[in-house]
Structures are given as structure tokens and as C-alpha cells.
């Protein structure tokens, strides 16, 4: 396009333009590096289908519902991304979330603890569970599939024991209940959205300036602006919808504002994305997932990395368990059971995280989680039974896994190995 060049160190490369940037991106997609693209396209198609069939799908009430319905699964899926990045699996994440939720509920309700002591204990339970799983996988050498399958059954048992054979523990703590059920004020909703947009723009521009100052290749300004604009439109539109009155009878009670879980998800997303993308630890997670032997020869403590991803996985499951307990107002022997694990694994994989390790982002969990929440919610609105929903979700997971496997083969065929 242009003959202008820029140096990347002294290696001369063509300065990318918007067109060449898009062209390169398309080249990567065709080469088998498709990332979240199918999930995003799928999400749009699903929304159009459900929105046409059931106009209430696009109502503010339903949009808000999607958040509280999807939140628990999304938290668990974000943890699973780390486990999947190493090509491992954690089948116990669902019931681990149930156990952690139960620990919190028992401390709150049966022992009268406050939320600020009960929640940390629940989170630490998650850390301990993850450490045990990771230790068995990396130090003892049992395949993660077996360890976590055993843990799946064991945690289900522990949950039953904790709940003395099956009683239901309800939660009355205001703070815990607010996590999944309450909304922020309209003002705060807007302020946080603006902060998020400005913050994102600042990070993007700082990166651009830092690289330009060193004479390194930078993304074209047009692409950077487009990214910021896309985020701004998305966030502002969502806030605009969510700050509308959602109550059937606003005179009695007013319901509006962004659900509290939304900023919690956003903060967790930012933290883990930073860890994976900008720290040595994250780099080493990708390296171990990509080539364990190369990582070992590079002096990376492979065993410790393997333990750590299970710790993060179960820690995130405990957050998921707390949020699920908050939404249900209670914990019962089936908390974290049923479709929770499958939805969480599905969310990560549908979002574009590879089952073969080495490829994936925390954001994938949210995109995939949104797809699953939309299917669950939309099919519910259309009156389909739970059975049909499970079948469809199962098929979508299979579809995502095939896309993953096929794009790997495509990558091999096109020399992307």
C-alpha cells in the first residue's frame, strides 16, 4: 500500500495500514486462528432469532436477567480458561463451586458469621481444593481427567454431608444477596461505564505512544480508534438499556441500573487479562501449554505452573459458587451440579479457548458464557423444556469443539503447524 517503512529494531518491516491490518487479520482467520469470531457471529445470529420470535427477548428486564443468569457460569469458565490453557481439564469445578457456596451459607446462616469473614473462608476453600487437585496432577502424575472426575463425585458427596443429607440452607445476609440480585444506581452505572471507556482509551494510547517512541511497529491509528469506539458504543448502549425502569409497578418499587455483578465480572476480567497478557507468569502459562519441554528447558518451573492453574480454576469456581448461592438465595445438594460444569466448559470452548492447550483468553469465557446464557434464556422464553435446552447446548458445545479441532487441522495444513 504505502512504501513507508518503520523499524522494529533495525529489522525493516512495512508500516501497517488499516487495510493491511485487516488483511493480516483475515489471513490469520483463514489460516485457522479464528479466536472468538464464530462465537461473536453466533451471538448476533442467536439474538436476532430470539428477538424476532419473542420481542420480550430484547426487553430491559430480560437483558438484565441475562447477567444474573450467566454470571456464575462465567466466573467458573474464567477459571477453566487457565486450566484449558495447559491442555488440562477440571471436571470438578461445578461441584467445587457448590461446596464453596455451601461453606459460605453454613457459616452465614448456621454459625451467624458476617459476610466479610464467611466469603474469605469460602474463597480459601477454593484455593485449597485447587492446590490438592493440582498437586495430584503435577506431582503425583495422575491425568487431570481422572483426578477431577474423582473429585467431581467426592465433592458431590461432601456437599451432601455438609448439608446433612440434603437440607436446603437459605441465605439472609443482605450483602451476599445483593451480589447477584441488586443493581447499581443509575448515576454510578454511567460513571463506571465512562471510567471504563476512558481507561481503555488511555491504555491503548499509552501503548501506542510507548511503542512509537521506540520506533517500533504500531497498530494503525484507525484500528485503535475503532476498538475504542466499539467498546464505547457497546458499553453506553448496554447502560442506556439497563438504566431504564424495569419494574412492573415503579410506584411500589423501582428497578433500574446495571446489575452489580456486571462490574464484578469486568474487574475480574481486567485482572486476569492483565495477569495472562502482561506478566511473566501469564507468559509462562502459555509457554507450558504450547510446549512443555521447551518451557522446562527455558527454566520455567512447569510443575508449579500446573498447580497454579488448578488453584486459579477452583478459586474462580468458589466465586461462581458464591454468586450462584446469592442468586438462588440458598444452597442445596444440587448447587453446582446439573448443567453448571458443562455450561462452564462450554462457555470457555465456545468463546474460542482451545481444548488442546496454549490458546485462549479470559474474555472467551464471557463471550462464550453470553452465548450459553442467550440460548438458555431465549429457548426458555420460547417455551422449550429443559431437556431441549440441554440437547441444543450440548450440540453447540460439540460444534465449538469441532471448530477448534478443525481450525487446528487447518492451521497444520496451511503451515501454521
Amino acid at each position: 500500500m504505502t512504501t513507508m517503512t518503520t523499524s522494529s529494531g533495525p529489522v525493516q518491516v512495512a508500516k501497517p495500514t488499516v487495510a493491511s491490518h485487516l488483511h493480516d487479520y483475515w489471513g490469520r482467520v483463514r489460516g485457522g486462528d479464528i479466536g472468538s469470531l464464530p462465537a461473536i457471529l453466533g451471538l448476533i445470529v442467536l439474538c436476532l432469532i430470539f428477538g424476532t420470535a419473542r420481542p420480550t427477548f430484547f426487553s430491559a428486564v430480560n437483558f438484565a436477567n441475562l447477567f444474573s443468569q450467566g454470571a456464575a457460569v462465567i466466573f467458573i469458565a474464567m477459571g477453566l480458561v487457565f486450566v484449558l490453557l495447559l491442555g488440562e481439564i477440571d471436571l470438578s469445578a461445578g461441584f467445587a463451586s457448590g461446596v464453596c457456596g455451601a461453606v459460605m451459607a453454613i457459616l452465614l446462616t448456621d454459625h451467624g458469621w458476617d459476610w466479610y469473614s464467611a466469603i474469605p473462608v469460602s474463597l480459601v476453600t477454593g484455593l485449597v481444593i485447587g492446590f490438592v487437585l493440582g498437586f495430584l496432577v503435577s506431582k503425583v502424575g495422575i491425568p487431570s481427567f481422572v483426578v477431577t472426575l474423582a473429585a467431581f463425585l467426592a465433592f458431590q458427596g461432601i456437599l451432601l454431608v455438609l448439608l446433612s443429607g440434603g437440607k436446603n440452607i437459605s441465605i439472609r445476609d443482605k450483602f451476599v444477596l445483593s451480589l447477584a440480585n441488586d443493581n447499581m444506581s443509575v448515576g454510578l452505572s454511567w460513571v463506571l461505564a465512562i471510567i471504563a471507556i476512558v481507561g481503555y482509551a488511555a491504555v491503548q494510547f499509552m501503548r501506542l505512544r510507548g511503542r512509537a517512541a521506540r520506533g517500533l511497529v504500531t497498530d494503525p491509528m484507525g484500528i485503535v480508534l475503532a476498538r475504542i469506539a466499539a467498546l464505547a458504543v457497546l458499553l453506553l448502549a448496554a447502560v442506556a438499556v439497563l438504566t431504564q425502569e424495569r419494574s412492573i409497578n415503579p410506584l411500589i418499587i423501582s428497578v433500574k441500573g446495571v446489575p452489580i455483578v456486571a462490574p464484578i465480572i469486568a474487574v475480574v476480567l481486567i485482572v486476569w487479562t492483565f495477569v495472562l497478557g502482561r506478566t511473566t507468569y501469564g507468559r509462562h502459562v502459555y509457554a507450558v501449554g504450547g510446549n512443555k519441554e521447551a518451557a522446562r528447558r527455558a527454566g520455567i518451573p512447569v510443575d508449579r505452573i500446573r498447580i497454579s492453574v488448578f488453584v486459579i480454576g477452583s478459586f474462580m469456581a468458589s466465586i461462581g459458587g458464591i454468586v450462584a448461592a446469592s442468586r438462588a438465595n440458598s444452597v442445596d445438594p444440587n448447587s453446582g451440579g446439573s448443567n453448571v460444569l458443562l455450561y462452564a466448559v462450554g462457555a470457555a470452548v465456545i468463546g474460542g479457548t482451545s481444548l488442546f492447550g496454549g490458546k485462549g483468553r479470559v474474555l472467551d469465557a464471557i463471550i462464550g458464557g453470553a452465548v450459553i446464557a442467550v440460548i438458555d434464556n431465549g429457548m426458555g422464553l420460547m417455551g422449550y423444556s429443559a431437556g431441549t435446552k440441554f440437547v441444543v447446548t450440548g450440540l453447540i458445545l460439540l460444534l465449538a469443539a469441532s471448530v477448534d479441532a478443525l481450525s487446528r487441522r487447518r492451521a497444520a495444513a496451511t503451515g501454521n503447524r
Partner: protein
Amino acid sequence: MAATPLLELRGIDKSFGPVQVLHDVGLSVYPGEVTALVGDNGAGKSTLVKCVSGIYTMDAGTVTFDGNQVAIHTPRDAASLGIEVVYQDLALCDNLDIVQNMFLGREKVRGIVLDEPTMEQMAGDTLASLSVRTVKSLRQLVASLSGGQRQTVAIAKAVLWNSRVVILDEPTAALGVAQTAQVLELVRRLADNGLGVVLISHNMNDVFAVSDRIAALYLGRMAAQVKTSDVTHAQVVELITAGRSGNLGLPPEKPAAAGFADLTPPGADL
């Protein structure tokens, strides 16, 4: 012979369980020279390299680096001395880009944040110093590179750290004619820059094209270390296949070969 060796191995023994793979091996690597390490499949070349790089611990023997006796127990020990190895199987992560691979395990950080611009700049400088101009972008995934480009990245990774000794295990085994020539040129340039280079190769043409010295391993013993200009093709082949050639190599009266030949089946590589 006036120069003193940069890296000197003496009396290296290495066994895997009951199988002794290396017997009393010695090797001298001189700065500014390419030392070719040759030997049949299973002679113990890769094992010797892995002992030097700290992946295996040696059973006996001494390593002298720059005149000082050193102990190498981990890959990091070797790296901190300035000994870098380009392994037979490259050891690159396909899912990471060129810069990320070159700095793997030794990332530059500012605080807790990866210092990407610095790493990218250093990687670019190193590739340029090796006159590598074939990569499109430093942020290209290694998966998308050709065999020769991958080899180049692996070599660049080895010279990034002001290394003093670079050991390359069969760097041209999987390459075509043009790319082989490129890599050999690169190997020669490393030595011309004053590094001590060890090149493992099965290809006699390559060995004679770039090396200053040839060290021949025969069934885990160092048969001979000679100047390339002092020997012929045929002599080196004899050293490799029989352990001696004329008055070069292992003494004939020592019937050692038969003693352990069955323990180290040739061709059984990792």
C-alpha cells in the same frame, strides 16, 4: 593451538541406569572457532550436549570455563555462564511469537509488567546483527515460520544473551539446500564474532565447509579431536565408523568397542 580453550571438558562419564553412554569424554572449544562434533547415531553427541547444558547431571568429569572450573546443574547455570544450546528438536513454543520465544524464561520486566518494547527492540537488534531479514514481523507466531526461519529464531535466541559458547545440535538436519547454506553462514558468523561454536552434524560437507576443528565421538568415547585442515573426508568417516583411522583415534589393542557395543544400540536416539 596458541589460544586457550574457552570451554574444556575432561573425563566426562554418563550412564543411564546400567547403560554407560559416555566414557571419559574430553572436548575443547576455542573462541572464534567452529568445533564440529561428529559421530554415528547413538554415539552420545546429544547426551554430551545435555550434560554441558545442565539438563543431565554428569557422573564424573570436570568442566572448565574461561580457565575456571565450574559446576553446571541446571539449564540456568549453563545460561548464566553464557553457554547456550540450540537443541535438535528446537524447543520453541508454536503458540508464542518470535519475541516471546526468544525471551522465554528470561523475560524483561518493569515492575511486574512485561517490558514488551524493550524485548522487541533487543530481538530486532539481534536478528539484524545476524543479518536476518527474512521474517515479516517480529510478532509473527513461530507456528507460521518455515523450518529455516524457526532454526534462525532458535539460533538468535541463543546469541541474544551475550553468550560465549553456542552449541547447535544438528541445526541443518531438516532443511533444504538454500536454508542449510543460510544457517551454516550464520554459524560461521557466530564464530567470526568471537564465540566458541560447537556444531553437531552428520553431513561431512557441512562439517568441512564451516568447521575449524573436528571432534569425533565413537560409541561414547572421544576418538579424536583434530584440525579440519589436517584430515581428509575419508579419515573422518573412518573415525566415525571405526573409532580410528591410521594413527588417529582410539588405540586398536583396546577391545573396548565389543564390550559395550550391545549396550548402546546404534540408531537408538531419543
